[in-house]
């Protein structure tokens, strides 16, 4: 079911200082049996004509915190506009946001290199946790200890959009040191189970961080990159997987599409670990209910190599894996 990435095996011991959630009791959502990830192929499931349980839970908790006044500002009062032009980028004017709103490293009492999240002080921001379950149907437990291997879902008190949350992979009192297939799988499970096209997951690779976190928010309109034409250079018809390069976009971007979730996430995790090995900055976007992953390659400030070469390295990997 869950594979342990060999890469992580050696480094697991040098995680950041243990972080204990002992005594913390919050709701727990158990994934049901997700056919897409367990047996490797996504059935062409019917689009649900109603909100999924995880979708409802997430929205309910977020709205509840809004009701309780937990946020610095009401993000829905920020005006958003489409910038006229070919790519239809979206601009948001948010007068409540400032640089202080980004989680900072290192000032937390839990240790150096740990992101300073609001929920570490005030538990109100911690919404619930998400973990694998044993049943075929998803299940919500109202208040329980955080299980051994889970994703913590917390609000971002300075949201960029409605429903902005942090998803923090957590395993045996330790926060994840870097992105691997296991943590990516948890995040992908969330995308699949929310079953909402408006829900997207994001990940930013930061070399100096000692632990990782995903972000997610709801936005009904697809992001501009999702509309851009793509040049496909790899297709595996049998597994319904294809890899493309996004054309006509300011950042070098690869797009992975698959009905075979397990394969896609292993490929992406492997590529990301290679990029990490070379200290190449990148970002991920998971959309289309977990069926699409975008990989944005940033110009690293460490190496002077050009982006296209970095992209090329990634593609060489694919040939080896698939």
């Amino acid at each position, binding site marked *: 079911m869950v594979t342990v990435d060999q890469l992580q095996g050696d480094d697991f011991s040098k995680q950041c200082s243990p972080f204990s959630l002992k005594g913390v009791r919050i709701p727990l959502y158990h994934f049901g049996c997700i056919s897409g990830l367990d047996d490797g192929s996504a059935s*062409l499931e*019917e*689009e*649900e004509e*109603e*909100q999924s*349980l995880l*979708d*409802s*839970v997430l*929205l*309910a*908790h977020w*709205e*509840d915190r809004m*009701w309780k006044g937990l946020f610095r500002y*009401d993000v*829905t*009062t920020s*005006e*958003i*506009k*489409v*910038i006229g032009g070919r790519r239809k980028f*979206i601009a948001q004017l948010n007068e409540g946001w400032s640089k202080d709103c980004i989680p900072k490293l290192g000032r937390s009492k839990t240790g150096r290199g740990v992101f300073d999240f609001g929920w570490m002080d005030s538990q109100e921001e911690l919404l619930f946790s998400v973990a694998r379950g044993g049943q075929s149907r*998803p*299940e*919500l*437990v*109202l208040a329980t200890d955080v299980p051994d291997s889970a994703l913590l879902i917390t609000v971002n008190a300075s949201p960029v*959009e*409605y*429903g902005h949350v942090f998803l923090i992979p957590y395993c045996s009192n330790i926060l994840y040191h870097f992105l691997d297939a296991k943590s990516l799988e948890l995040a992908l499970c969330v995308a699949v189970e929310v079953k909402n*096209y408006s829900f997207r997951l994001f990940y930013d690779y930061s070399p100096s961080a000692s632990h990782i976190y995903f972000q997610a928010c*709801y*936005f*009904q*309109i*697809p992001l501009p990159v*999702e509309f851009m*034409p*793509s*040049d*496909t*250079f*790899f*297709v*595996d*018809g049998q597994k319904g997987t294809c890899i*493309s*390069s996004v*054309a006509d976009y300011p950042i070098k971007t690869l797009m992975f*599409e698959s009905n075979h979730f397990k394969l896609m996430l292993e490929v992406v995790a492997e590529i990301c670990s290679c990029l990490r090995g070379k200290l190449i900055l990148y970002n991920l976007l998971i959309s*289309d209910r977990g*069926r699409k992953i975008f990989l944005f390659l940033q110009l690293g400030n460490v190496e002077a190599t050009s982006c*296209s070469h970095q992209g*090329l390295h990634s*593609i*060489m990997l694919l*040939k080896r894996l698939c």
Partner: protein
Amino acid sequence: MESELGLIEQSINSRYSLWVLEALNELPESFTVTDPCISGQPIVFASKGFLKMMGYSKSEVIGKNGRIFQGPGTCRRSVMEIREAIREERGVQINLVNYRRDGTPFWMLFHMCPVFSKEDGRVIHFVGVQVPILQKPRRRNGVGLVYEDESRMIESVYGSCRREVCSDAMVDLGRALSLECALDDDADHRGVQIEDTCEASELEKRRAVSAMNNILSVLTYYSESTGRLVCGKRCSLTGLGLFSSSLNISLGRIKQSFVLTDPHLPDMPIVYASEAFFKLTGYARHEVLGRNCRFLSGEDTDSSAIYRVKESVQNEKACTVRILNYRKDKSSFWNLLHISPIRNATGKIAYFVGVQMEEACKNQDGHGLSPEMRQLSAVGAVRIAVRSLSMGAGTSKS
């Protein structure tokens, strides 16, 4: 209460009269008509040509959503393009893989157009025309954008795969990959596999457009007989008309009982109500839309509760009240009503949402989400649906 099949029949008959069915059935082309105002945007009419081409019977198709004809080979980006066109209430022409009843996939040109009410500019129906494409696979891009640099196209001599590669360092790599894949790929495409790119010819596009024009003229003509005129272009947008069908679609996913009221219109009328609301109160759609919520209050309704609601609305704040409401049959129930202002992309309040919860029915649904939480999740879903409305320049392309 209207049954779903009844709603579907009404969708066509009330707008165009019964006689339109005969006229539509005389058209040879393959096309469908869907109703975005009914939850799930079901097909309300399927032409004979469509049923024949797809191998389905009428009863297997009416009431279903168009996605049942999609399958693993259907490009997800194309599906997204169609979804966006519906949301933006505009037409779209796109190459798409569909599946017949027996499972065989085929490429077709899908041409879709909205049908607007002449009176208030609302979208009444979407018409979709399907023109099968003779296999001449070219480039992988559902929307058929033209690349300036034709040399980017590589037509593989291996017969089965078409690849498109960038004209930089990736070219050789791409060729190598395509070589490897071509050797593995199944060359027979009449079976389960299918070309991964395809584009319609000019002739096929013209056929789609002329079919669409025929269908629209038939619909326009027959709408005159009921007096509820339609047209192919949006003519006017009155207050109620501004309530787009895209909102109808996204709000249709919310299964709780709720209403949206518009504070900018006189007497703050209800502009949307969920199916669950009709079920809870016993009223029908036409008895609810356009009216202020006060019809739910009655003799024994506490005026202080009403006052609290009014006050919250005036102060643009959210509130929860326990209020005695009355159904159409005059029976009463305690309503735990949660009201909240809902903003659109401008950041200003566009609507107020009122989510009803019948106190007697405070059973937890099997999943473990409390009724209060379910109320809040409805509010959240409404916020997301309304948040991207009125985003300004560049979105609507009618």
